[in-house]
């Protein structure tokens, strides 16, 4: 028989928010450690969702509904997380670069990173280089995720990286880039630390760049 934790992961995968929340409550009542609920239940479920999305088994709405189930369950354990001594995997700021208003890819990456236990600052779309520099200086993020959907806005990624350099903060942060027209070659050319072809790979890349076990 599957354990309650396995059930929780399964409900996240299915996107069944009511059952996921109910199971989270049951686990809390049984005094199951919060770290286990988060890691072996919620994050484990989202990892499966990410894998299935990457392999084209899952479609976007299925990712969204799973993320909702995970988020609503996470709300229940959030107040207990500080006491449980769970450390955040790190803080990542994600945004679509200047001149580009496309947010779907950026939103999926945000969801997947949150689903993997990262703290994420969603900077929105049309984010200028100065705003990225500011978030590095002021919020101490360890990684930046830059998104672009247009060939015409890809150069804004380079400008952002240049701005980080000029501000003297380039070595404080890892820069990941992604979006439909992007390639590893372009990422290398503009001096990014990493490229991810899809939202699930962005999580793997973030872990790799921040030296966390995959």
């Amino acid at each position, binding site marked *: 028989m599957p354990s309650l934790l396995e059930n929780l992961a399964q409900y996240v995968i299915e996107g069944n928010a009511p059952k996921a929340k109910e199971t989270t409550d049951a686990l809390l009542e049984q005094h199951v450690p919060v770290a286990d609920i988060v890691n072996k239940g919620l994050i484990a479920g989202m990892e499966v969702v990410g894998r299935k999305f990457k392999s084209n088994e899952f*479609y976007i709405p299925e990712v969204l509904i799973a993320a909702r189930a995970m988020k609503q369950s996470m709300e229940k354990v959030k107040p207990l997380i500080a006491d449980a001594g769970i450390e955040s995997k790190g803080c990542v700021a994600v945004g679509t670069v200047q001149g580009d208003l496309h947010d779907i890819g950026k939103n999926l990456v945000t969801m997947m990173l949150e689903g993997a236990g990262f703290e994420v600052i969603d900077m929105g*779309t049309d984010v200028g280089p100065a705003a990225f520099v500011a978030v590095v200086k002021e919020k101490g993020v360890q990684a930046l995720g830059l998104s672009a959907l247009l*060939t*015409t806005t890809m*150069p804004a990624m380079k400008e952002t990286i240049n701005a980080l350099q000029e501000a003297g903060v380039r070595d404080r942060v890892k820069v990941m880039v992604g979006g439909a027209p992007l390639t590893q070659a372009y990422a290398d050319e503009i001096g990014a630390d990493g490229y991810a072809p899809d939202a699930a790979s962005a999580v793997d890349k973030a872990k790799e760049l921040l030296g966390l076990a995959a």
Partner: protein
Amino acid sequence: MLIIGERINSTRKAVGEAVKARDTGFIRQEAIAQAEAGAHFLDCNGAVVGVEAEPGALVWLVQTCQEATGVPCAIDTPNAQAMEAALKAHQGQAFINSITAEKAKFDRILPLARDYKAKVVALCLDDSGIPQTLEARIRNADFLVKGLTAGGVAADDIYLDPLVFPVSTSGEAGLHVLETIRHIHAAYPGVHTVCGLSNISYGLPARKLLNRAFLVLCIGAGLDGVIADPLDQPLMALVRAGEVLLARDEFCAEYIAAARQGKLE
């Protein structure tokens, strides 16, 4: 129904390579195939070469397409300099793709539309970004119609694009487009609407099915222009069938002609 053929877009890999290599044969073939399939305008996008080389690429695309077919082009760039270069090279009435309600872009593109007497695709988008609500779309449509006509663009040359987003991430994306199309045709008789289709189905299975169903719904709401692949024969057949059913095809003449040419199969 006005058809803008979308195939000559340099973000498609094969087209991008042809633009970089100035492969005239390839572009001619794409242009002729679309014109024969019923495209009234040929979209030309050369963005892949980068901002500095874009004017030259667009001029070459426009000239190559027009020499091959004599069909006018829709010049697809946000770059005013490239737009003007291509307009200068264009014979007959061109389509500007596109203008928006973003202040700086509106001010840069409007004089080109007026001076070159071009048709314009006007995206319902302003400086606050992509419209999240129906009200925002309608506000942008209102601004564009008033601003363009006041600026000397004929109502008949205005094609408002309500902006199509995936239903996979926003469930009401399709509904908002349909409502916006209805509003525009009710509020501004003589002004046209146009949209692309394929965004609607992003992230979902059987995308062509959704694209086609959406096209039919849009035509029903009043859409009278579409940016699409004219070589998609089932899609074009639906356009023709829709026009018959909405009494936009006198004596069903286009429909019958298409049937005789084997284009409804």
